[in-house]
């Protein structure tokens, strides 16, 4: 019996040993290249290769690898069949053989065998890159932090910023660009707009946006703030490419000469109340009308009958909360100087009730001194009203002692 048990035990052990020694074989694998130090190059090395090639375009035939992070992709449509990549040594524009498949933040290895290192109008490019064949993603969402550049003027053809992801602070679009849009989506027209340092008057830099970008028709922000962009170059022009409009973070008041978006009521539609303007008869029934033939204007008169009454002409609610230099101006004309027309501003009017329910502060514009000559009011500074729900209003008072007629035009609210 004991012998038998031994046999059982031995058999099991023998069988198990036989099996387990044959166990855990390595999976077969096709030969795969192992990168050694010399097989990996940097973006700086890559650029140097073309320099070493007497600045002649160079198709890479060696089995080299380059590791980098994608800093800009095609998702917003500002790029098409291209991308930007960056590593510790620099950045370069990558031209793809087909669109798609590469996303911002992708950490990639580029197999360089096949692509061409080239230059287009001073812009270094890695051309003919096939996302399927040449690019091997190592990880995703490895976004690079943009490099903070001190000023617009620090970006020059020689500053080494080409193709890099940068961040500028305290910048704004130059006044002449405003109002405007990044590009024209309807006609798919690419546009350049100048961006300046608020603090300096040095030459501004171009912000270039494709008409295919999904934010082409977005308005250019009027304020001042920070921007994240890729630095591109066209000959001697440095250009910024916006990845996404949400990286243009202009929230501070502009500096320098005030520019704002103006909304002007010029009465050419022969309509007193268009554009949100309203009239309120506090007393009497003197009403605003339009007048003129070629250049229409708004007019109010108590007529030769010298009617008595108080009539207000009130703007739509104005949101000045993001305005850098809120103001109001207009021009006026009258027969002879009088005080029947007054200008007020309120921040607590409700837009529908009688104006007497709100608090109004009088403003003192330059008014026509008579002879029907038009007088510019001058800019009424409303910077004390940087908030929403602001109203400006003309108050006309008709008295039985005088026949006063006032004409107003080009009522311009500037945010």
């Amino acid at each position, binding site marked *: 019996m004991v012998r038998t048990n031994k046999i*059982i035990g031995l058999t099991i052990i023998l*069988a198990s040993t036989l*099996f387990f020694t044959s166990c855990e074989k390595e999976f077969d694998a096709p030969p795969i290249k192992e990168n050694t130090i010399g097989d990996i190059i940097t973006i700086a090395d890559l650029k140097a290769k073309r320099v070493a090639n007497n600045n002649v375009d160079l198709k890479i035939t060696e089995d080299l690898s380059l590791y980098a992070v994608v800093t800009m992709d095609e998702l917003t449509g500002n790029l098409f069949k291209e991308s930007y990549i960056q590593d510790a040594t620099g950045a370069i524009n990558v031209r793809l053989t087909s669109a798609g498949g590469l996303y911002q933040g992708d950490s990639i290895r580029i197999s360089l065998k096949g692509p061409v290192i080239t230059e287009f109008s001073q812009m270094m490019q890695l051309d003919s890159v096939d996302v399927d064949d040449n690019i*091997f993603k190592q990880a995703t969402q490895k976004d690079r932090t943009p490099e903070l550049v001190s000023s617009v003027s620090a970006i020059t053809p020689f500053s080494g910023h080409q193709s890099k992801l940068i961040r500028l602070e305290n910048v704004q679009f130059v006044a002449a660009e405003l109002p405007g849009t990044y590009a024209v989506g309807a006609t798919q027209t690419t546009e350049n707009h100048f961006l300046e340092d608020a603090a300096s008057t040095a030459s501004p830099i171009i912000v270039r946006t494709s008409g295919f970008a999904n934010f082409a028709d977005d308005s250019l922000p009027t304020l001042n703030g920070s921007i994240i962009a890729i630095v591109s170059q066209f000959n001697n022009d440095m250009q910024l490419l916006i990845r996404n409009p949400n990286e243009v973070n202009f929230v501070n008041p502009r500096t320098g000469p005030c520019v704002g978006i103006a909304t002007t009521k010029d009465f050419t539609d022969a309509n007193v109340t268009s554009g949100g303007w309203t009239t309120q008869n506090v007393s009497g029934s003197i009403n605003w009308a339009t007048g003129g033939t070629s250049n229409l204007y708004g007019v109010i008169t108590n007529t030769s009958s010298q009617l008595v009454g108080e009539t207000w002409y009130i703007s739509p609610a104005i949101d000045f909360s993001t305005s850098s230099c809120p103001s109001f101006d207009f021009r006026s004309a009258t027969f002879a100087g009088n005080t029947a027309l007054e200008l007020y501003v309120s921040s607590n009017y409700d837009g529908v009730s009688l104006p007497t329910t709100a608090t109004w502060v009088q403003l003192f514009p330059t008014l026509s001194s008579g002879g029907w000559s038009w007088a510019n009011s001058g800019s009424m500074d409303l910077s004390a009203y940087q908030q929403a729900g602001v109203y400006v209003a003309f108050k006309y008072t008709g008295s039985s002692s005088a026949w006063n007629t006032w004409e107003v035009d080009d009522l311009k609210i500037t945010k």
Partner: protein
Amino acid sequence: MRILNIISVALILMAVPAIAQTDSSATINNDSTLNTKVVPTFTTSLDLLEEETESQDVSGLLQSSKDVFTNIAGFNFGAARYRVRGYDSENYTVMMNGITLNNPEGGRAIWAFWGGLNDITRYQNSKSGINASSQTFGGIGGFSNINARATAVRKGTKISYAAANRSYKHRVMVTHSTGMMENGFAVAISASGRYSGEGYVEGTFYRGASYFISLEKKLNDRHSLGLVGFGAPTVQGRRSISTQETYDLTGDNYYNNYWGFQNGEKRNSRVRNNHKPHLMLNHYFDINKKTKLTSSVYYIFGRGGSTRLNWHDAKDPRPDYYKNLPSFYNDPGNEAIFDQTTTAWQSNDPTVTQLDWDQMYFANSKNLFTQTNVDGVIGNDLTGNRAKYVVEEQRQDISHYGFNASLTHKLKENMMLSGGATISIYKSENFKEMNDLLGADFWVDVDQFAERDFADESVAQSDVNNPNRIIKVGDRFGYDYDININTYRGFGQVEGTSKKIDWFVGLSLTSTNFWRTGNMKNGLFPDNSEGDSETQSFFNYGIKGGLVYKITGRHLLRVNSAYITRAPFSRTAFISPRTRDQIVPNLESEKIMSGDFSYIVRYPKVKTRATAFYTSIKDKTWSRSFYHDDLNSFINYVMTGVDQLFVGVEFGAEINITSEIIATAAFATGEFVYDSRPTVSIIQDNSTELLENNKTVYFKNYKIGGIPQTAASIGLQYRSPKYWFVGANFNYFTDIYLDANPDRRTAEVVANLVTTDPQVGQILDQTKLDDDYTLNLFAGKSWRIKNKYYIRFNINVNNVLDNTDFKTGGFEQLRYDAADIDKFPPKIGYMLGRTYFAMVSFSF
């Protein structure tokens, strides 16, 4: 003895147990066909999947085995797709009355052809592994011989009803056997019906009938004649397997995309409809006291069919087509459509997650089309609604007849000589038949892919002899060819027995000839599609031998070995038999070498077996057709020199702890791997252009997928002397791998990669599925009334814990995109949750 018990119990704790089948009629009657039908199968191509789902599960063959290990494995491992020693079922020989029933085209026996005849098929003699047999040389996996002689069926009548919730829900069966009557006749008949309106998996259904008749006439003391006829017409709506994404989206691991609603009713697009009657005439001749001769003629014929959707100039109607799934849009910028598609899937909107039959009818109802030059007659135009979508039935109708003889002769008291000869003449007709035009008026018999690729209109014709043929329901179309296989086989065996040693040696010689006959002249291949192909001839041999050394009568050592060459199966030999007669280049016979060593203990109360085995199968051919993204073509992928290795151990034990309590254990583990670097040729399907040649697949040591390579079971049962029993088995499975796509393991795919790239692992690594377990319960009771009536009740419940997360296997799709390996994710199948089979029978 007690020490031995203790040791054995210890072994069980390490390993696993079984059901003693001392009285097979009283114990659980696990319906093998049922297992076969329900169990999902996984192979790397749809064609194979088609075949394998109807092929026999090894468990069916093993459940009647007397061997402790195979018995437990048969009952408990089948649902997890376990295959004994990892072997494909082509390595098992299934016979009835000595006639081999394995299909000559693919080598597998298709259990479904005698499904529902459990009262008959239980009378089988099964052995696993290399064995002596007086009736066949057999394969390395073993053999099973169903004894269908009328006198073999137990005399009496048995009526049973079974309720289940697997592929069918109801089964009735009636069997009657007269035994040998005074007039020298014996008659056994059996009939059954199986039915479900909807099976366990949504959209599946089952309607099957089975009939069997066996007559035997004893002519005189030396001669008996037997006639057997049976068949099992079965119609079955099938289930799909799909990607994990679809299971996650629908929240259903049994998501079946084969069905959809038509007028509010579920309709399955994949319906199998088989009926292959078998007829055999046997002559039993006792030449003298020492010599017996059994000779038979047989004829097998009938239809095999499986429907599927086809479409022309229309969008892919399959809900799980990759472009219809959210993952196709899972890229930045496509968030909106991704969310929309995801929501549609998650809401389980049947027009999204299932086939949309109404939409297909609608599309067909308004596709007015004028087919010009019908049948090639200029000016013969036909205008009507041309079908965009149809249901076609792919048919394989067979006609198989042959002669079989086996002789046994007692050389001495302890030495037996046996031998046999077989002639098998097999022909299958392979074609498509139009099943349903879905409301349209006609279908035109052209190949839409060829139509797209070639300007010459004749190229797209399925049959140049009948150009622009109009197809109506019932017409053959698409392809039509015959496979002819003539096999001549002889074997001889000598076995001897002595006090200490039993032994056997056997030799087999086989001649195989096969050829294709094309019945259509395909427009793509007008010169090699019609008529007879060259005949492929193979001459093969096998030798086997075995030795049992009896240490004592209770302790045995057994060693077996075999070397067999096997002709390649015609199924893999033709590269694309539907269109042409091209043969795989350098077609070779497979070489099989196998050996095992066992230690067997047989006490009345303790039975154990421990076996170590080693099998190598060399020079297999593997061919599939699929769309190759890198080559932008539908291609034929032919891999030769595929070697496989099967090394492992098995252990089984059955211990009667008391006379009423029996403990069982089984444990098997192995390394079932590819053992070579096969060579690949890639051929453009519609031009035979050799796109790639002599490409190496780095496949060595990749696991053979879709099966657990390690399985263990422990069980306990109580058998009351009062004729009832109850038992349970706990089963554990591990080392389950997805079947690997060979083309992903080539140098070309990783050409631009370096070792540190994460893509290397994503492309090359083989996916291992999670370990999992099941608990099965069974119970039964029998009553004897008036000494002549028996009522028996038994039930078994599989997967009692309702584990619905058990991934039993799957395969990597052959279509792949190396740059985005998740684009075509693997297809995965889950084991069914809790299922039961309960039967009550009445016999007298």
